[in-house]
């Protein structure tokens, strides 16, 4: 078997397609690296500036009374850019990278425009990047996901379309099978031969890409990032073997190599180009064309009016316990309601996205796209992780405020109202800070299903190729 593999590799190495493939992959990978080196420092800088500004805001809010911190909360939250952004762009222009903490809402002002009733902060999740006003042509960025998903799969077909049909045309297949080699050995030899010959230019191009990126002083890759890159490389091999298996399958069944290539290319166009977009359109047409507001109204037909509920306390300027508790409850409920509404909207929209993702998973190209996004720490999954991180931190901060207040025996423990909270000074250093983190094991868990599907695809196609080749007449 090893003999056949070796023969295949030598055959391929000298061929025109090998040279063209190498040139093509190198060009793509170098462009990708150059772009990343040019863009990434800017992205990181923007993020750092934003985080510094947001951290300064939190410091300003925490420097003084606890009430101010409880009222104004933290600064805005920013999504940490992934250092593996070059692997998958992950819809960067669509997904928002900020979660806003709005100024506390002003409920009422007096005739001189002075605030008399002001609530507390709440989180608001922006839907999608509405700042994107680009009217230029839409193309996909050349990232690893594109290179592997579209180009490498095409190359895999390019290397295998004549694996059997070509040999049959030349008559060498008969010669080979005249020897006492079992057919499955021939098949496996061919499979690995093609896979290795494709991996060589890809590995070379990836190496050049990574060399360029890692030598640039502005981009820093951690050990974890290298681990993730290793996983992505393995994914690329798995995905390529899927198309190698497909190529072998068709090539074994079809007599002429030209016909085999045509069938393969049409299959490729359907699988990689049309299925993802058509299926996504079908999936999005399932979701009703109602706006979220209508959906919300249907879900919550009678929403209790907070103004009526707390009317007796809101307008009194007394500072007794009952009034303060009334105001505090109004503020917290209002903030909670705002936050819940935003969260529901995000969930409503994510469920549509998940549905579309599930349906498009029939296409291996989409599976790969999602997997690479997952491991590169970009894309939709990562966005939701960022949202979760923020929510966890928001809880943490609220607990911190409550705990600090509880620790002060003189405070009446009524949160959200100036008169009801601890008067003790707090220091900005004691306040917990937000850090956006990525979690590899979580990424593995979410990817497990998709990984399994992709492997299953490969196995099915390989056994298909085996059956086809065993039964075929030479």
């Amino acid at each position, binding site marked *: 078997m090893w003999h056949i593999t070796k023969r295949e590799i030598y055959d391929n190495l000298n061929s*025109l*397609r090998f040279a*063209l493939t190498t040139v*093509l992959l190198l*060009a*793509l990978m170098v*462009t*990708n690296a*150059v*772009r990343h080196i040019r863009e990434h420092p800017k992205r990181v800088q923007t993020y750092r500036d934003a985080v510094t500004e947001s951290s300064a805001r939190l410091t300003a809010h925490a420097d003084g009374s606890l009430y101010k911190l409880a009222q104004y909360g933290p600064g805005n939250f920013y999504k940490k850019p992934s250092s593996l952004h070059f692997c998958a762009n992950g*819809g960067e222009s*669509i*997904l928002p990278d900020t979660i806003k903490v709005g100024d506390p809402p002003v409920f009422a002002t007096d005739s*001189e*425009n002075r605030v008399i009733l002001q609530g507390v902060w709440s989180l608001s999740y922006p839907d*999608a*990047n*509405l*700042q994107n*006003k*680009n*009217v*230029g*042509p839409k*193309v*996909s960025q*050349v990232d690893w996901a*594109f290179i592997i998903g579209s*180009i490498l799969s*095409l190359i895999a077909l*390019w290397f295998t379309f*004549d694996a059997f049909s*070509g040999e049959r045309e030349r008559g060498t297949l008969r010669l080979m099978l005249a020897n006492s080699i079992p057919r499955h050995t021939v098949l496996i030899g061919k499979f690995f031969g093609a896979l290795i010959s494709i991996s060589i230019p890809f590995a070379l191009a990836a190496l050049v890409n990574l060399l360029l990126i890692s030598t640039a002083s502005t981009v820093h890759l951690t050990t974890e990032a290298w681990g993730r890159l290793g996983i992505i490389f393995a994914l690329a091999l798995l995905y390529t073997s899927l198309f190698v298996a497909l190529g072998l399958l068709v090539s074994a069944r079809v007599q002429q*190599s*030209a*016909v085999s*290539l*045509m*069938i393969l*290319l*049409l299959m490729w*166009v359907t699988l990689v*180009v*049309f299925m*993802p*977009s*058509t299926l*996504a*359109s*079908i999936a*999005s047409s399932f979701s009703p*064309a*109602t*706006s979220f507001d209508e959906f919300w109204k249907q879900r919550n037909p009678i929403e209790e009016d907070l103004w009526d509920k707390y009317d007796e306390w809101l307008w009194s300027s007394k500072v007794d316990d009952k009034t303060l508790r009334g105001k505090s409850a109004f503020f917290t409920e209002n903030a909670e309601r705002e936050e819940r509404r935003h969260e529901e909207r995000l969930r409503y*929209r994510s469920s*549509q*996205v998940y549905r*579309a993702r599930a349906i498009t998973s029939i296409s291996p190209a989409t599976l790969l796209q999602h997997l690479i996004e997952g491991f590169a720490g970009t*894309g*939709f999954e990562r966005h939701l992780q960022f949202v979760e991180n923020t929510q966890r931190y928001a809880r943490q901060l609220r607990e911190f405020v409550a705990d600090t207040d509880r620790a002060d025996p003189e405070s009446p423990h009524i949160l959200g109202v100036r008169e009801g909270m601890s008067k003790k000074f707090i220091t900005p250093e004691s306040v917990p800070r937000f850090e956006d983190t990525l979690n590899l094991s979580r990424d593995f868990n979410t990817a497990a299903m998709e990984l399994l599907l992709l492997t299953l695809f490969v196995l099915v196609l390989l056994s298909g190729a085996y059956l086809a080749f065993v039964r075929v007449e030479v």
Partner: protein
Amino acid sequence: MLMTLIRRELLDNLMTFRFAAAVFITLLLVVANTVVLLKDYEQRLTAYNTATQESYQKLREERVYSRYAMDLIVHRPPNPLSIFNLGLDKQVGNEIAVYHAFVPTIWDAVKHGADNPFLNLFTSIDIVLVFQGVLSLLALIFAYDALAGERERGTLRLVLTHPIQRGHILLAKYISAMLCLLVPLLISLLLSIILLTTSTTISLHADDFLRIGGIVLTSLLYVSLFYLIGLCISAMTRRTSTALMLCMFVWGVLVLVYPNLILTAVDIVPQPNTQISAYHQIKQMWEELNREKKLFLRNDTVLGPLSRNGEDWGFRLKGGEYSFLRDEDKPSTLLYFYQSGFYAGKIKAESEPHVPLVQNYYGFHNREIVSTVNRTWLVRKPALEAIYVQPANLGQMLLKFSPVGLYDAATEAWAGTDLEGIQDFFSTVQRYRRAVVDYFYDKKIFESRQWFAADEGTADWDALPQFAFHRSDTDINAKRALPDMLLLLTMNVILFTVIMLIFIKSEV
């Protein structure tokens, strides 16, 4: 003789498996996608109709004119031809407010509430995309062995023993292959048009069929170009397997690699910060206007004491109900304006003497606003062009080095979903805004009592000019598509000549 050759080639092509596969695959993809796209269009149309209705009703609920700021909203209908080439139709906002304090542009438009913006994470599809990928592939598959195959089989030598010009052989091959490629193109288009006409929601005019005709013509040029590329490779190579491999490589590069690679290498993302000085200029003009307003109000003998520190929030009129503020501050689209005012239900008798003065003030102030907007527009328009239109045009131009880019641009122009086609809508909105402002001037609405109070007659919204948008005429579409089509045609002619030269000089 030519006819005999064509007949031979045609029969040769028609009886092949690849022809059957070509027809089948194109039909399948086009029909499946038409159904999906039709559904998508219907949804967008429903969303448009609901939104238009809602805006209409909301505007009629308002009783004073100054409230039109919130509710005079016009909507962009989805383009039925976006099924053929989606272009910018789905991407650009489709809801825009008409207001005298800013000039509405494509960048101020927002999306209807019904859309889920996250779904843009998935790529969208249209019929031109199917043709772009599949027909070019089929053209190459028809072409790769046209000359190399005959040379390999030795039939070329046989044919040339007859007294036939070599040019005729080429022409015969070209014509018959194009006829064969026309079959899947036309049948699939026919089916999709039948599907479109059976749908009750989509209404195609006679003009639309002309535009579809333009798209078909462009598709033909595109397919022919790819066939000629394949023929060129076939004429240059000795063996069919090499020709096939090269054809696929060229296809991959032209269709898949080049468009993405070039736009990754050359950054065409808009950079709003480059025009930040224009934004500051606009902001300054508005701040100046605001200062003048405050100065005017403070110095006015009667209104001065009534206005709080130069703010026009109610003028202490008895019966004033609430004040409002409408402002935008978006450095990324250079939008800045600031407009405050108030709304009064029933003005009490004791404040009645002040009313003419307030009316006079609003008449004066709104005129100032309109002239400020005109001045800011002179700054804003070129700055917006520099930020957004120039990179977009650069991207379009770079893409046109590949036939795919030319094809896409030309069909977009025919369908009216290109930037210019979308801009047509926004120019109409800008004209409509001027019409509304003129109407307000004519009827002296800015200085009327109904601008802020509803006690002596309410705003008459039905008399307002109505908004109507018609897509541009077919000849304008044609004019926009023509340069790209001519480029495609020239490429065809040049390639054909090159093939002729190669073929005449080549040994058999």
